[in-house]
C-alpha cells in the first residue's frame, strides 16, 4: 500500500533552493574577483599540478577584466547568502531538525559502510533514516563550510575593522586561501551531490520540492505494535 511519508519541512526546502542561485552568483562573482590576481596553484616539489584557472576557462566564461563588477555583485549577494544561512540554522536548531542532521556517535563508522555500499563493494545497505550517516556528515559539513565562508569573507573584506576575525583565520593571506578552498569545496560537493541525487531517483528528488516521499508499506497485522521509531 502506498503511504505518504513526510520528509523535508517547508523551511528546509525553501532555504535549499534559495541558496542554489545565491551560491552560484557568489561563486561566479568570486571568480570575477579572483581573476584580477590569479595566483593560486597546487605545487609540490617544484612541479605545478594545478593552476587556478586555465585561460580557456576564463575566456569561455567571460571572466577577465570584471573585478569591479564582481565586487559589486559579491557584496550584495553576500547578504542573502548569510541571511539565508542564518535562517536555516536557526530553524534547524529551534525545530529540533538538528537531531536528524548532526552526525552522532555512530555516524563516522557508518559513513564508511555507506561509502562501501555506494561503491558496490558491500551489499547490505546501512541504516537509512531521514539521512544516512554519510549524508549527516556531508550536510553538516556544508553548513560548517558556509559559516567558514562568511567568517573568512569578513576577514578579507574588513581586515582592519575585524582584525580579530582575520587573526582567527591565520592572517589575511591564509583567510583568502581558506575562502578560496571552501569555494572549491562547494564545487566538489555540488558534483557529488548531483550524482547522488540522480542515483537516488525521483522519489528522493521530489521530496526536496514537495516535502514527502511515497513509500510502499506492507499491510499491518490487526494487532499493531508500536511503530514509533520508524518516524524518527
Amino acid at each position, binding site marked *: 500500500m*502506498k503511504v*505518504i511519508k513526510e520528509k523535508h519541512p517547508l523551511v528546509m526546502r525553501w532555504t535549499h533552493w534559495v541558496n542554489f542561485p545565491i551560491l552560484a552568483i557568489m561563486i561566479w562573482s568570486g571568480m570575477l574577483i579572483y581573476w584580477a590576481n590569479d595566483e593560486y596553484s597546487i605545487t609540490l616539489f617544484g612541479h605545478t599540478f594545478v593552476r587556478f584557472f586555465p585561460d580557456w576557462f576564463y575566456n569561455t566564461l567571460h571572466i577577465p577584466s570584471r573585478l569591479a563588477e564582481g565586487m*559589486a555583485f559579491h557584496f550584495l549577494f553576500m547578504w542573502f547568502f548569510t541571511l539565508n544561512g542564518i535562517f536555516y540554522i536557526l530553524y534547524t536548531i529551534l525545530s529540533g531538525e538538528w537531531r536528524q542532521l548532526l552526525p552522532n556517535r555512530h555516524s563516522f563508522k557508518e559513513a564508511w559502510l555507506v561509502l562501501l555500499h555506494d561503491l558496490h563493494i558491500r551489499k547490505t545497505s546501512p541504516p537509512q533514516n531521514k539521512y544516512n550517516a554519510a549524508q549527516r556528515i556531508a550536510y553538516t559539513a556544508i553548513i560548517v563550510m558556509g559559516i567558514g565562508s562568511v567568517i573568512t569573507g569578513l576577514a578579507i573584506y574588513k581586515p*582592519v*575593522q575585524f582584525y580579530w576575525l582575520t587573526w582567527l583565520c591565520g592572517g589575511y593571506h591564509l583567510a583568502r586561501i581558506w575562502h578560496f578552498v571552501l569555494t572549491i569545496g562547494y564545487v566538489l560537493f555540488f558534483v557529488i551531490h548531483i550524482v547522488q541525487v540522480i542515483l537516488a531517483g525521483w522519489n528522493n528528488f521530489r521530496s526536496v520540492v514537495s516535502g514527502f516521499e511515497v513509500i510502499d508499506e506492507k499491510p499491518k497485522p490487526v494487532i499493531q505494535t508500536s511503530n514509533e521509531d520508524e518516524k524518527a
Partner: protein
Amino acid sequence: MKMKKPKKELTIDQKIKRRNFLSFTVFGAFIAGTYGGWKWLYNSPEETAGITGGVRKPLRRALNKTELFFRRLAFSENHLVKTYPKSMAAKVVRHNTDIGSEGKLPPEKWKLQVKKKSGEVLQITLDELRALPKTEIVYDFKCVEGWDQISHWGGVKFTDFIEHFKLHDEAKLDYVGFETPDKQYYVGIDMPSALHPQTLLAYEVNEQPLPGKYGQPLRLIIPVKYGIKNLKRIGSITFSNTRPHDYWAEQGYDYYSGL
C-alpha cells in the same frame, strides 16, 4: 449535477497528486521568478556617471548602503592596522600603475597646495614637511586586485600635518580630496579614515626618498584603504562636505574602499 461537495476523504493517490501539483507549481514559479529577477538585475541600467560611475544602479545602491553599514558597525580609529618589523618589509615594492605620477618630477617645481576653507592656498615645500616629526610604518599594503605586500613607509602623520598647518576647521568637514599635479589621478577620502592615526603623507619608502614611480616626492599612505586610494604624487589637497571626485569610483569601484 449537484455541486454539493462530498465529504469523502481523498485517496492516497489524490493526495499525492494534489500536493505534487501545488509544490511543483510553486517550484516552477520560483525558478521563473529567480530567472526574471536575475535578468532584471543583470540588465539594469548603469548609474549616471558622476562622482561614482560604471556600476548597475541597484548594485551601486547596495555598495553604498553596505559600506555605510560596516562603517557604522565597525569603523574605529582605535582599530590599528597590524604592523611588522622592518626586516619583513619587501625590498622591491610592487608597483601597478603610474597614472598621474609618471617619471620624475623636478623637485624645484613641486609644492604641495592646500586649499583652505577661507580660500587661501598654502604652498608647502618638501623641506617644510621633512621638518615635521617623521612617522614610519611597516604594514601589509593591500591591493583591491587581491595581492598584498608588507612595505615600509615614512613621512608625516596626517593628523600632525593638520595640527601644524592649523587646518582644524578643514578637518571638521566630511571629506578630503587629493589630486596629482597633472590632475590625472584623484581620490576622495572620508575624514574619519584620513584622521586615522596611521594615515601618512609619505616621502620615504624603505628609508629612501620616494623614487619617481612610487609617487615622488610625496604620496598618500592610508593603511585603512585599498591601494587604489593611496594616491601617488600629491599635488593638491582640498576639503569639502561632499564627496570629492575619485578616479576608481568613476570606474565602478566602491567609493569607500575601506578595510
